[in-house]
Structures are given as C-alpha cells and as structure tokens.
C-alpha cells in the first residue's frame, strides 16, 4: 500500500463520529488553553491524559489509543491557534512561542485593528497547519533521517545565525538591541550548567538551580511592564477606549500576509522537525526573516500585519514538523511532544521506528484527524475573534487588574514559588524602565532562549572534536549557516559604506 492508501484509511478512522467528537473536544479545550495566559499546550495535554484515559476506557486498546491521541494532539495544535489571542489583545504572551507576536500584534490592537490581527493569526495558523501536514505525509521519512544528522555543530551555527539576526528585532538603536541581547545571554547562564554540571550564579539557592524561568521573565517584561506604563503615564485617564474596528481582515491585509504566511509555514515546519529547536525559535526566525525581506522594515514593531502573520504561521507549522521525529523515531522534539509520547506509551503504543509498521491505523488516523482538526479550528476561531476582540473594549480600570491577576496566577501555578512572583514583579519594573529608554525587550528574550542552546551545543561539539574548532567549518551544513551569519552582518555594513541608506545605520 502506498502513502495515499494509508492516508485514506486514516481518514476512515478519523471520520468515525466518536473520533470527530474527540478531535472537536481536543481543539476546543486547546483553544481555551491557548487563550488562558500561563496555561501552555504542555500543561493542557498533561492535564487531559487521565481524563482521556477515563473517556476511552470502554474501547478496545487500539481504537482507544487512536481516540485519545486525536484528542490530545487536538489540544496541542488548538493551543497554538489560541496562543496569539492574549499576545495581541493584552501584550501578555500565553506561551513562549507567542512572545514575538506581541511586538506587532499588540500595536495593531491599540490601533483598533485587533480583529484583523486575530483573524490573520487564525488564517495563517490554518494554512501553516495544512502545509506542515502535507510535509508530514510526504517527507516524514527522509526528513527524519536528516534531522538526526543535525549534530551539535550544526545547531551551534544555526543558533549563531539566529543571534546575528537579532538586529532584526532592533527598533531604533542597534547598540541598545545588542546590549539587550547580551543581558539576555547573561541571564541565561544562571543555573546548573548542563554540560559541565557546575552550578553558576546560584549561590547555593535551590530555586536557582534550574535557572530563571523563561515565561516568568517574558510575562513580566511585556505584560506587567505595559501595565506599569499605563498606570504611571495615566494613559487610562484619557478615557478613550480602543475600538475593535472591523473583524475581518481587509483585502490589503490579506495581500500583505500571503507571503509571510507561506514563508512562515515552510520555515516553521523545517525548524519544527529539528528536535529541541521548537516553536519559539520558529516564530522568532520567521519574524526576523519577514522584517529583513520587507520593503518597509520600519513598519515592524508599529503594527505591521506581516509581523503577526509570519510568527503565528511558523509556530503552528512547527507543531506539525515536531510530529515527524516523534512518530518516526520516537524522539520528542519539544516538551509537548514528550508528553504526547508518554500518553501513547500509556496505551502500549510505542512511538518510534516501528510505529508505522506496528500500528499504522493509529499513526495515520492521527495524521488524518489533524487535517480535520485544523479545519475545525478555523471554523471555530473566526466567530470567536469577534468575541475576544471585545476584551480590549473593557475599561482599563478593570482590564489592568485582570492582566496583573492572570500574570500572577499563571506564573505561580507553574512554579509554585514566591521567588518567581518577585522575579515577575522585578521584570515588570525593569520592562517599564527599559521601554521608557528605548531598549527593545525582544532581543533580551531571544538571548535568554538562544543562550543555553548556543553554549551547550558549542561545548558538545567541542567535546566531541577534542577541542578542535574546525569542526564548525568542516561540517557543510554548519559552514553554510556560519557563512549566512557573516553575510548577514557584513552586507548591510558594506551597503552603508557605499552610501546606501539601510535600516541598520539608523543610529548614525
């Protein structure tokens, strides 16, 4: 039987009414999980494992496993759809992959274009979901072979490229963007070093052993920083409530978003395939790429719809890509897929090289249900946009306490420590002063994500090569990334020297 035959069988299984119901419940809960700040896809999936076990307990083992995994995967990509909502409306990223969406999404909302931003996020997520599923069906085997060849040297060079691209997140001054990047990298060194096992900057305080939690920092900087600004600058005194405006995107919006969605989908899919890279990087990279490609890079950060379309497509596409190493190799590429894998194992289904041979009906049933689930999400989300968009019409005197409450609740529920609450408030205050002085926040957050990956992969590569740095140049993929990174930095400088006006020279 060929792939299409398998896929057709998968649809037969996924289209059974009970599996349709499971998929619907999954994406519905997923949307809610994504919308609620703090509760990320991982927690949503983990929470539902025992629930699905009860729901499917009457069925035979194979169909129980299929139904359960359909529901859980629905939560996973449903949360990716919903994750943009609070980023756009409240400047509060619900999970790490939505941080970059706040940059332009929140600005759009303030300009009364929340409806457009939310619908573009939903449409982009849908297209990206479908693109990545087609990729999953056609390219799963060859891509998984390539993905495991991706060693520490290749990861290092890819991350270095990401760091070089950080200029794409600068608003006015490159220097300030670089300062923030370095601060992010420094903060990232706190905790147990995973390569040497040495504790750094922990001062024997156990709470610091695992480092500063990424989301605490991000929510503090973005959400609380914005709240403090609104209060201190008495923005709310104007009494001018932001209007929702039109809900559907304009023709121009759609036209502007087409390219970013297409590119974001592809980029997100390929980054998602790499174990350990994940949705956060996918969204950052696609945002930076769009800014670089755009003819109007100055619009980014001020409410450019491309800045919402690209990262939202990319993070959704990466969730499809991440299914490849999970299903073909049994290697979870992200925290959420690790939980999904745990769920499959509970049903005595072992994801891995034998899954497609031993349990084709489960693997293909899942893939088929993801097509259906994505369609459901689009249909579910478009009417919801109107409802959610109303949130920003809430007067600030109610809205601000709500933002503070959900930030505090979200952080405490994960970390269970008052330390993280203090960190949250500290980051909020820092965020306020940084933004006041034009220091961009996104490079700090990116530095925090990239820091450990750059460092660990560099040292893994060097341990393997016995300290020989040429490993980064002798591996072709690694070399290619390094060359692109160098060009990325040098080309604008050359252009500047030849008198061309480029964005990077703005600081003068």
């Amino acid at each position, binding site marked *: 039987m060929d792939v299409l035959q398998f896929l057709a069988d998968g649809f037969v299984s996924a289209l059974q009414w009970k599996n349709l119901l499971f998929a619907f419940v999954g994406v519905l809960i997923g949307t809610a999980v994504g919308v609620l700040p703090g*509760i*990320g896809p*991982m*927690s*949503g*999936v*983990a*929470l539902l494992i025992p629930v699905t076990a009860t729901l499917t307990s009457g069925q035979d083992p194979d169909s129980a496993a299929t139904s359960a995994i359909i529901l859980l995967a629905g939560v996973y990509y449903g949360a990716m759809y919903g994750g943009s909502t609070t980023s756009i409306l409240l400047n509060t990223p619900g999970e790490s992959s939505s941080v970059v969406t706040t940059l332009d999404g929140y600005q759009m909302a303030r300009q009364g274009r929340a409806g457009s931003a939310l619908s573009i996020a939903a449409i982009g997520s849908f297209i990206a979901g479908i693109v990545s599923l087609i990729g999953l069906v056609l390219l799963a085997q060859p891509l998984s072979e390539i*993905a*495991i*060849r*991706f*060693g*520490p040297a290749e990861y290092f060079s890819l991350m270095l490229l990401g760091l070089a691209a950080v200029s794409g997140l600068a608003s006015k001054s490159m220097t300030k963007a670089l300062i923030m990047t370095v601060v992010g990298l420094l903060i990232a060194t706190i905790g*147990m*070093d*995973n*390569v*040497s*096992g*040495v*504790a750094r900057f922990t001062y024997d305080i*156990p709470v610091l*052993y*695992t480092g500063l*939690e*990424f*989301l605490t920092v991000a929510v503090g900087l973005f959400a609380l920083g914005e709240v403090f600004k609104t209060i201190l600058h008495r923005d709310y005194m104007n009494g001018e409530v932001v209007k929702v405006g039109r809900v559907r995107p304009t023709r121009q919006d759609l036209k502007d978003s087409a390219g970013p969605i297409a590119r974001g989908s592809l980029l997100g899919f390929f980054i998602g395939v790499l*174990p*350990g890279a*994940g949705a*956060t990087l996918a969204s950052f990279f696609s945002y930076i790429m769009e800014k670089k490609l755009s003819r109007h890079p100055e619009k980014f950060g001020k409410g450019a719809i491309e800045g919402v379309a690209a990262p939202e497509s990319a993070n959704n596409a990466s969730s499809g890509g991440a299914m490849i*190493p999970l299903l073909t*190799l*049994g*290697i*979870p590429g*992200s*925290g959420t897929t*690790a*939980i999904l894998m*745990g769920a499959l*194992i*509970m049903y005595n289904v*072992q994801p*891995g*090289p*034998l899954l497609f041979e031993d349990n084709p009906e489960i693997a293909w049933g899942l893939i088929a249900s993801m097509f259906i689930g994505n369609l459901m999400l689009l249909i579910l989300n478009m009417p919801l946009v109107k409802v959610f968009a109303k949130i920003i019409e809430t007067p600030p005197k109610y809205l601000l306490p709500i933002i503070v409450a959900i930030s505090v609740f979200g952080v405490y*529920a*994960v*970390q*269970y420590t008052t330390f993280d609450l203090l960190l949250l408030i500290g980051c909020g205050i820092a965020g306020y002063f940084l933004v006041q002085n034009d220091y961009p926040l996104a490079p700090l957050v990116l530095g925090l*994500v990239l820091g*450990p*990956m750059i460092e*660990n992969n560099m040292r*893994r590569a060097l*341990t*393997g090569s*016995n300290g020989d740095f040429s490993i980064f140049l002798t591996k072709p993929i690694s070399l290619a990334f390094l060359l692109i990174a160098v060009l990325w930095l040098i080309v604008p400088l050359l252009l500047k020297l030849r008198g061309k006006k480029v964005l990077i020279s703005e600081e003068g």
Partner: protein
Amino acid sequence: MNTRHRKWSSFALAALSAVVLTACSSGGGSGSSDNYPSKPIVVVAPSGAGGGWDKTARSLTKVLGESKLVEKTMTVENKPGGGGAVFMAEYATQDTKNPYRLFVSSPPILINNLKKEGNTPYGYKDTTPLAQLTKDFGAIVVSVDSKYSDIQSLMADLKADPTKITFAGGSAPGSMDHLISVLPAFKAGIDPKSVKYVSYDGGGEAIAALLGGNADVIGTDISSASEYLKAGKVKVLGITASERLGGDFKDIPTIKESGIDAEFTIWRGVFGPKEMKDNEKAYWAEKLKALNESEAWKKELAANSWEPEFKGSEDFSKFLGEQEVLIKEMLTALGMAK
C-alpha cells in the same frame, strides 16, 4: 529547551491540585496517632508532570485509591525544580512530622546529596524510606552499525585512546546517565575522568545523537532503549544488572558476565517524613505490601513497562546505604563528590 519546557507541564495539574491542597495541607503534622490516616494524603512528585517520578506517583495513588487499599483521598502534587533539590530543601525542613505528605524518588535523591555542584544538604537519611516499588537497569548502547558488539572491545579501545570515543547521555555530568556511562570504564580500571561525556537535554536527544552519528555510545536505561533495540537500530552491549533479564532482553549480556563488576539499579520508591510514628510506618508497610501483591498494580506496571521489585522499609534503607557507597565512590573518582 526540553528541561525548561518540562516544567510547564505541571501547570494545569498544579492549578487543580492547588485547590485541593490548600484544603488538606493546612493542618499538616498534627494527625493524632490512633486513627491514621484521618485526612487526605498527598504524594509529591518532585518534578513536573509527565516524567518518571510523576508517572510513578500517579500510578501509585490511582491503584491505592481505586482498589480501596487506602480509604482517604490521595492526590499527586508536582513540585519541580533543581532535579528534586527544591522540594527536598522544603520537605526536610518543614514537613518532618507531617505523615500526610509522602513523595516518590529514585537515585537522584542520593546523587544530589553527594555531588559537589548543585548539592542539596538533604538526602534519604532525612526521610523515612517506605518501600522500593520498581527497578530498571543502566545500559551501554551503541548504534547498530557500530564496530563494537561487546563491552570488552569497547573498553579495550577506550583504554588505548579515550579521546576517540564520545559517550552521550540525557542528563548533566555527575547525574545518572553520566554515572552509567562511566561505570564500566571505572570498574575496568580506566580513569573515569578521561571518558568523554556529552550531556543532552533528555534521553530522546541523546538517542538522536547516537542514531545520527554524533555520539558513539550512550549511557541510558534499558527500558528507554528497548524500542530501538526491537527496531534493529541499536545494539545493547551490556546492562548493569546482576543477572540477565527475561523476555525481549534475554540475549543481552550483563556487564558483570564480561568480568567487569558494574552493577547499578535504577530504583523508584516511596518515602515519608523523617519522624514517622510506628503505627504510621506499620500502616504503609501493610498497604504498600498489599499494593505490590495486587493484580491492579501488576497491570499498571506492565502498562508502563516497569519491572517490579519490592523492598520493605528496612531492606530498602539498607539497600540505599549500599547504593550511597557506590555512588560516592564513583563521584569521588570523577572528582565530583562533595
């Protein structure tokens, strides 16, 4: 990133259990001795949801509750941070007399207490070990097209030039995968410090590195390697058990057979607070023994591919003492002991 993200999984669970917990933990420690347990019981998994500790805690509470062995409500609480160190710091100081808070642990409770970096001053001696429930063994695994097919040839090459062979594992140096990786070398008389060990974020990434040719050997546990073994992707050169396992693993030699005395058990067990009254200890001795003999527990073990191994409180404490000596010896050889 995995480790960072793993913490997120506890999220919603935490939100749920927080509600339950505030209700039941408030009067902790004051339980009168005769009618123990008189209140709901919390079993802590000192990690996020989804990992081994969490799954053990959930299976344990599920079976004890459903089979009515324990009449009081049992809930699981996730307490992530510092590989269990955050939880231990709190438990060993604030819950020493609270018999309504138990927890699940495994070798890291010994390792964290003995190693220099990321040390926690609290170890198993600050608790009451109640019972060991499961066991697993370390495995030395190579890719199927590796030139090594037995542990001796690997050790011979390692002895000749340790810079040529890269070991990998899913946890930081000084933790479990690293100890498993260097154990055979150490016992074969090779300086464990000379063994090149690369740590990845979790066992999945380590297997990926092995399959992709970015590592030559990985140290892991046999249950994680089994699917790759069945698929013909890897060879298991040896396991750290005292005798061969059954079933799918019957053809895998123990490292001991090769004349290298490397034994290491990855146990999982239940612990209580340090100061437990005799009747409380007796209560759990009886209930956990009954659990171990119940059909429901056997099914739960099979569903998770866990090997049963039961030790009561006394045997378990003695066993922990022996394991502590072994781990201390290895960490000292690695220069990583406290």
